[in-house]
């Protein structure tokens, strides 16, 4: 998995963009939850402590980056199309969290059709569960809503994933 800078500025920017870009969220909520509105801790002049939602965003970003770097993909063309659809989804989700698309070598296309589908289904289900956990753990309602939407998007694609044929 490629390294990704996780500076305080990145965390603040990500959560600030996530919260600030949401429709229907009261200004009070956003101000209360944006780490920029919190006073810096005494004796820590440069970096405020990360709050729970900031940590959640970082964890989800890390998971998305990992989803974009599988160890191997399928040799079957139709499975690769499905994988590309999931990849596009994860890139869009990274964008919503104000995180850049990671760069790295393309994974090796070594899996059979059935193994590729099985691997994809397993990984995406695990990712969906992590998004659900993040949704339930989020302090901010706006962030919970975003994670729930991301989880629903994965559920939609899993619902149309072809069955594995022998």
């Amino acid at each position: 998995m490629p390294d990704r800078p996780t500076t305080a500025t990145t965390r603040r920017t990500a959560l600030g963009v996530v919260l600030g870009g949401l429709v229907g969220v009261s200004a009070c909520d956003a101000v209360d939850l944006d780490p920029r509105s919190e006073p810096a801790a005494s004796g820590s002049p440069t970096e405020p402590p990360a709050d729970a939602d900031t940590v959640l965003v970082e964890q989800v970003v890390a998971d998305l980056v990992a989803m974009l770097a599988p160890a191997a993909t399928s040799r079957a063309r139709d499975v690769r199309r499905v994988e590309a659809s999931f990849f596009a989804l994860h890139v869009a989700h990274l964008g919503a969290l104000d995180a850049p698309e990671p760069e790295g070598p393309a994974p090796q296309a070594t899996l059979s059709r059935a193994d590729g589908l099985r691997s994809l289904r397993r990984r995406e289900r695990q990712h969906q569960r992590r998004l659900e956990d993040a949704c339930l753990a989020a302090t901010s309602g706006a962030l919970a809503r975003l994670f729930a939407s991301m989880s629903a998007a994965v559920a939609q694609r899993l619902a149309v994933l072809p069955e594995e044929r022998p």
Partner: protein
Amino acid sequence: MSELAALQTTLAAEHAAVYVLGVLGAQTSQSATPELFTAVSDTYAAHRARRDHLTRTITDLGEQPVASEVAYEVPVDLSTVEAVTRRALRLERECATTYAFLVGSTTGDRRAWAMRALQMTAVRELAFRGTPEMFPGSNEHADH
């Protein structure tokens, strides 16, 4: 918005959904359009169950659940499969937005329930010729 107000808003949306799906169901035929009939029937059952769940939840909170309207607006012309499908898809997308809103307004078990409802609604969109979205229920993120 308070959790109770969000639950009431969602219940009001489910009252409308159950009504509209009842009208749509009356326009489908089990013999002529079996797939659409099944999709509308299943969706109707799902929304009824959620409406009843929301009613119980609000009652358990000691509050009076919001009542259904007498009638809701539906398209005049629902004579074609396309028209019924289009209206059903629109309804599911609207409900996805409602459940995303409920997720953001609740915590704990109620948020978990709303999250599952959003997922199921998003998947059900596909039965009405919907295509997978990037942000079901939260389309403001799509243009990010």
